[in-house]
């Protein structure tokens, strides 16, 4: 043992590229003032050379860039490959689409980072201090306004507006009117509904209400009004938009900001935050907008008739032969939209913080940089939406029908015999839904929550597969609706009735998870892509409108998750009854939780 030479000693002796420096030399000298007290050390700002700055920034950007690449590229590649391999068509304007997708990636990267730096600090401060300093009615009123603000800032809302330009006024006048003449009021109504949902959700976990009755009481007017609208052939064409609006609202801005306020209110009231506090708001925020849009529709039908809308649209199209102003054409329009989406929310948050709370803001420069990044990201994302996602989704949607039917202007269609082509198109939709959902980061987070909630009996993987399968079947059903021109109401009513029965049978925890899982699956990439695909498909097949796929993608996971929950409860109970093995206290608890 003793005749060893230590490697370190050897290397030091050989001068192996090591130096030593005393920490004392590196430490700043301490000074004392006249009374002998130590003067606190003042640190100077460090200026780094360019290569060091690059070394810091490179991993920072590459991690965030790759996050978005992982979300966008597989979906885009799937759409492009399907077109090339099965439909034998190259993607049109492939360079523009590629550039657009790149803009989506960069825009989302900047947007998400800006959100974390610039807007979330507001959410945290307001969420923790507002409920303590202000009376409950004022807090709820601010929650309502916040709901409107976040809806405007939601990236996917731009996709709804973009969809409006493709609606043919003669075919669906009310749909055209809502998406064009009334577009701002439409977003306002959706925002107001989200705000109302946030208020209800907050009250719910303040007073510990069960989610079940809330769902029943929301479903009754929503389904009732839908049936009423379905009676009128003109109004029925807007149902798809109304039900899709629910899926658009619950995105990366709304969920964290509204939740942080809601949880803040609950904990200020001494209710603490239990596992279920966060749930429910997302559910209500995807149901209330349906009601809101349908109410707006009723208002519009009372205000103007279809003939008036068509006449107005036709006179408008002849009148605007002059070149439109710079802010009405791309790319100026996207930039104006981006600023208009973010600024009101920022100003509102500032107002609440400074005037109502009188709280100081820390790290102001970071927050301003964050806000700037959010706005720039939103503008770039909007550009990418127009040139990338909408174009790709639209062209994919427009081409899929050539698999099984004759489309004017495309040679060689249909490519396959009817049944083969139809199965191919439906399989395309199924895998699109499954693939887009399984990679959603929000779903992963939900899975972890569920796994801890059920002591590991309901695995994260099980939830992810249940939700993905639900979305896959939902999107397939939505596509089938377009192909066979089924009325949406015949899909919605049975779907939600089944969901209501399952809700009655399931335990409170699973009701929360299942209804929320519908909201988390529709992110800022899936929504525009699926919307554009549906509209492109609808235009190609001559369907009246291409909405309705997203809402089917929402109801799918609600049903599959509750079914899976019931199935695992049945299995646990069956094992308990059969007495296959000794039942422990833990297993009984798990059985009860399921």
């Amino acid at each position, binding site marked *: 043992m003793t005749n*060893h030479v*230590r*490697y*370190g000693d050897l*290397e*030091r002796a050989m001068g192996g590229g*090591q130096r030593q420096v005393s920490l004392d030399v590196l430490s700043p000298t301490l000074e004392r003032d006249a009374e002998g007290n130590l003067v606190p050390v003042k*640190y*100077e*700002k*460090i200026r*780094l050379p360019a290569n*060091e*700055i690059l*070394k*810091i*920034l490179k991993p*920072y950007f590459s991690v965030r860039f790759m996050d978005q690449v992982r979300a966008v590229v597989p979906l885009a590649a799937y759409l492009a490959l399907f077109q090339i391999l099965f439909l034998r068509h190259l993607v049109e304007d492939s360079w523009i689409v590629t550039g657009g997708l790149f803009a989506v990636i960069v825009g989302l990267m900047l947007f998400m980072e800006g959100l974390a*730096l610039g807007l979330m600090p507001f959410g945290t401060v307001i969420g923790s201090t507002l409920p303590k300093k202000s009376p409950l009615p004022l807090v709820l009123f601010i929650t309502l306004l916040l709901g409107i603000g976040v809806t405007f800032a939601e990236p996917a809302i731009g996709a709804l507006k973009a969809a409006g330009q493709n609606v043919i006024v003669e075919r669906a006048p009310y749909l055209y009117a809502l998406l064009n003449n009334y577009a701002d009021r439409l977003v306002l109504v959706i925002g107001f509904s989200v705000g109302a949902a946030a208020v209800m959700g907050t009250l719910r976990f303040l007073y510990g209400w069960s989610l079940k009755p809330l769902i029943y009481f929301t479903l009754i007017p929503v389904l009732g009004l839908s049936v009423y609208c379905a009676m009128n052939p003109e109004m029925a064409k807007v149902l798809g938009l109304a039900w899709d609006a629910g899926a658009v609202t619950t995105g990366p801005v709304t969920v964290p900001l509204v939740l942080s306020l809601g949880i803040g209110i609950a904990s200020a009231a001494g209710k603490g935050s239990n596992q279920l506090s966060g749930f429910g708001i997302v559910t209500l925020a995807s149901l209330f907008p349906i009601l809101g849009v349908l109410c707006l529709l009723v208002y519009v039908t009372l205000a103007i008739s279809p003939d008036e809308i068509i006449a107005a649209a036709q006179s408008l199209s002849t009148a605007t032969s002059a070149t439109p102003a710079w802010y009405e054409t791309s790319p100026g329009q996207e930039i104006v939209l981006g600023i208009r989406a973010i600024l009101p929310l920022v100003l509102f948050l500032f107002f609440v913080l400074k005037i109502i709370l009188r709280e100081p803001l820390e790290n102001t*420069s*970071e927050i301003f*940089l964050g806000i700037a990044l959010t706005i720039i990201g939103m503008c770039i994302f909007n550009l990418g939406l127009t040139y990338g996602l909408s174009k790709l989704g639209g062209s994919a949607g427009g081409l899929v029908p050539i698999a099984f039917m004759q489309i004017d202007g495309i040679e060689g269609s249909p490519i396959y015999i009817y049944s083969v082509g139809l199965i191919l198109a439906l399989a395309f939709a199924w895998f699109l839904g499954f693939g887009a959902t399984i990679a959603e980061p929000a779903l992963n987070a939900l899975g972890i929550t569920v796994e801890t909630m059920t002591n590991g009996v309901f695995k994260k993987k099980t939830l992810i597969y249940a939700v993905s399968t639900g979305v896959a079947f939902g999107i397939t059903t939505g596509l089938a609706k377009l192909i066979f021109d089924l009325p949406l109401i015949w899909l919605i009513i049975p779907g939600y009735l089944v969901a209501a029965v399952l809700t009655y049978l399931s335990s409170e925890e699973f009701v929360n998870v299942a209804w929320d899982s519908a909201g988390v699956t529709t992110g800022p990439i899936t929504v525009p892509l699926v919307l554009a695909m549906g509209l492109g498909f609808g235009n190609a097949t001559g369907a009246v409108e291409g909405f309705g796929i997203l809402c089917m993608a929402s109801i799918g996971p609600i049903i599959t998750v509750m079914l899976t929950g019931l199935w695992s409860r049945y299995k646990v109970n069956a094992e308990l009854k059969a007495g296959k093995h000794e039942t422990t206290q833990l297993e009984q608890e798990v059985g009860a939780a399921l």
Partner: protein
Amino acid sequence: MTRENLTYVTDASLVSCVVPAGKGDGVLKAARDLGVGGGTVYHGRGTGLRERLGLLGIAVEAEKEIVVMMVANERLDMIIDELFQAAELDTTAAGYIYATPVDKAAVYIPEAALNQLKDA
């Protein structure tokens, strides 16, 4: 459990490696490749150069992971050298690595390994 099971390990140092959050597992992997038996990862947060970088500080991960492992004194310098590279600590505000002497430690050592030592 008998008294004989207790065997002290000596000539050891404790290496602690403070790295940006998310890099802890990579450091652990590098350490295992260097023959370190295992390690522990803690979560931590602190201040340092990041606060003096101004806006550039945003790009520096504030959350850190602390990887702690016991290594043989013989290999201490080599391991510190390798881990410094693996964790890319030659970057501003990335973190640091240090070693403290371990007086004695006890850990499960497989029976076979102990017998081999006795024979030698």
